[in-house]
């Protein structure tokens, strides 16, 4: 029997050797986190998502240039063109509380004076103004609620996972109880009882969304920490007598937090959606505040004549859908990247 040397290119051997350069950024994030980030930037769907998100960020930053506020002290107050209750169609003349004409207006629309570009809703609130300035409201509420729920969830979940045993058991039963009621019902009740205390503003709804929004994160981070906790370096830290809190915050958390962080950053779309639903049900801001849910809720009294007044739901509705879709597109790609079955294939 003759022994032959292996021929052809042996890819099995080649795979153990790093053939590409590892940059500083990748070294900083770690290979797994780097894979998640680059994976997100590769699919067309998530790129479309990023473009949508960037578009809305642009609108919210440029709001005063797109349509200047009429009351400078309170730019979130949608200007009212009179007090007639029935909506007026797109392109109708704007007579009272007219904003200044911005530089782009004449070039794009070919008109010298403001008209109601997207019509007015019940009570003559300008829909275009509501949508543009509502973008700021959306980001404001989305960011605050997401950051707060994330922090609370991380702290709660890591304490629960780190101490384990009895403490963990009690803390997780509390989470179970908070998760029993459908979240929209719990949030609605809390927001409505907070409204007389705090007054009609964004705050009651935001507090309610935070109070019932953090449980998911605490569950995820708890699971991640439980697996990181078993690693040798944690044991080593404990052996040399590092304090509990230091082990938790310096050694465990940084190694467990990244997937939750990415998930949380994409939850802004869902938060804005829940917030709009609350405004639609009548909880939240003062009437006339630039907020997408509120602009939509003006349509509730005009259901029977929607064939004439279609623009009072189509434009704000479309804005909300596109905004949420931007986040969902990125989130969908993220789910693929995070899927353990996809690991190893970038």
């Amino acid at each position: 029997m003759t022994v032959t040397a292996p021929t052809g290119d042996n890819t099995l051997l080649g795979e153990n050797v790093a053939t590409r350069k590892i940059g500083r950024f990748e070294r900083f994030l770690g290979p797994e986190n780097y894979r998640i980030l680059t994976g997100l930037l590769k699919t067309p769907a998530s790129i479309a998502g990023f473009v949508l998100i960037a578009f809305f960020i642009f609108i919210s930053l440029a709001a005063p240039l797109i349509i200047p506020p009429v009351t400078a002290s309170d730019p979130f107050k949608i200007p009212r063109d009179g007090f007639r209750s029935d909506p007026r169609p797109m392109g109708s003349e704007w007579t009272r509380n007219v904003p200044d004409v911005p530089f782009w207006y004449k070039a794009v629309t070919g008109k010298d004076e403001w008209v109601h570009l997207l019509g007015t809703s019940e009570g003559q609130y300008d829909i275009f103004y509501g949508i543009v300035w509502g973008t700021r409201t959306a980001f404001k509420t989305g960011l605050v609620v997401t950051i707060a729920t994330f922090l609370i969830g991380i702290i709660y979940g890591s304490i629960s996972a780190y101490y384990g045993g009895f403490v963990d058991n009690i803390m997780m039963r509390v989470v179970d109880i908070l998760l029993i009621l459908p979240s929209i019902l719990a949030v609605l009740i809390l927001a409505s009882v907070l409204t007389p205390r705090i007054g009609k503003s964004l705050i009651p709804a935001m507090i309610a969304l935070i109070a019932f929004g953090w449980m998911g994160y605490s569950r995820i981070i708890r699971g991640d920490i439980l697996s990181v906790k078993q690693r040798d370096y944690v044991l080593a830290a404990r052996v040399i007598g590092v304090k509990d809190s230091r082990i938790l915050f310096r050694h465990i958390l940084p190694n467990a937090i990244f997937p939750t962080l990415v998930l949380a950053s994409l939850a802004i779309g869902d938060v804005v959606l829940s917030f709009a639903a609350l405004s639609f049900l009548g909880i939240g801001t003062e009437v006339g505040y630039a907020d997408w849910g509120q602009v939509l809720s003006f349509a509730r009294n005009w259901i029977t004549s929607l064939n004439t007044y279609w623009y009072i739901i189509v434009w704000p509705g479309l804005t909300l859908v596109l905004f949420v879709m931007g986040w969902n597109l990125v989130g969908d790609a993220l789910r693929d990247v995070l899927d353990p079955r996809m690991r190893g294939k970038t």
Partner: protein
Amino acid sequence: MTTYIIRRLLLVPVLLFGVTVLIFAMLQFLSPVERTALYVRDFPKNDKAIEGLIKRYGFDQPIYVQYWTWLVGKVDKTSGVREGGILFGNFGYSRSASQPVAELIARRFPNTLDLTIWTVAPMILIGIWMGVQAAVHHNGFIDQAARVFSIVGTSFPTFVFGLLMLLIFYANLHWFSPGRLSDAYNQVVDSSSFTHYTSLLTFDALLNGRFDIFLDALRHMFLPILTLSYISWATFLRVTRGSMLETLRMEYVTTARAMGLPERDVIFKHAQPNAMLPVLTLAGFSIVGLLGGVLITETVFNYPGIGSAAARAATSLDVVAMLGFALFNGLILIVANLVVDVLYAFVDPRVRLS
């Protein structure tokens, strides 16, 4: 298995206690005056009357005393009559609905249940069908289309989709309308000639032999059913697709193909049944979710179910009704989740053994 069920059952009162304490604590944000204000009709409000009510129902007491009173009620010292007490079935009187809360729930819940029952089949079957098609045509045109559909579906807020449906099918085409029944039929249903066997309207209509009422009820439910299903289709599609793709990669599927079985049989007889386990869990939780999550859909379509009543109670600060709905919802959801878990243990031997 039996110990598992018993352990879960023992947890039910604990969870219910937790939920009611939670709601009770939230309601403490309202001052005693605000909690009684709904029950005093004169304007300007009669301070004496409000104070009397606060004293009578103990709203100025510490929270644990109030909670105890809510649980067991208060026995009048002279007449010996017990007033209130949720444990004795007294849920209180709802001002926003002008009827006792128990009666309100009893009237509204069958409507929600009716809607849920009719939503289950289209929601699950069409969702699964789309998921299987997407998996079978993996990375093909159908798969991409399904992906777009599911992303659009998850991005649509319920109320925006509902309003759009009303815009198209009600305001423009006049095919379907919001509400529960046409006015003419409402009188028939309320009259004594119509027997309420099950209090589920569609089934009662059939049992009474009124096929026209049955159709009318379905016609009013069509848009809510479509809205509720559409929102869930995306999730069913995604889960079925993922599970189906995984199953199609297994070796027994390759074996079946190698044996020369027709592709139809390979997919529908060999692969699909095994791919259905995760979908089954999802189906369980979705049905449970429907019972509690119809709040917005019912409000948009003006459908007289328990969700729209709860929304009304919350926005009008009707404390008694809020507590009643939260308790009832909590009870239903805890029991339904328990049933889903137990059923799942029966279907999947792996869960039973662990």
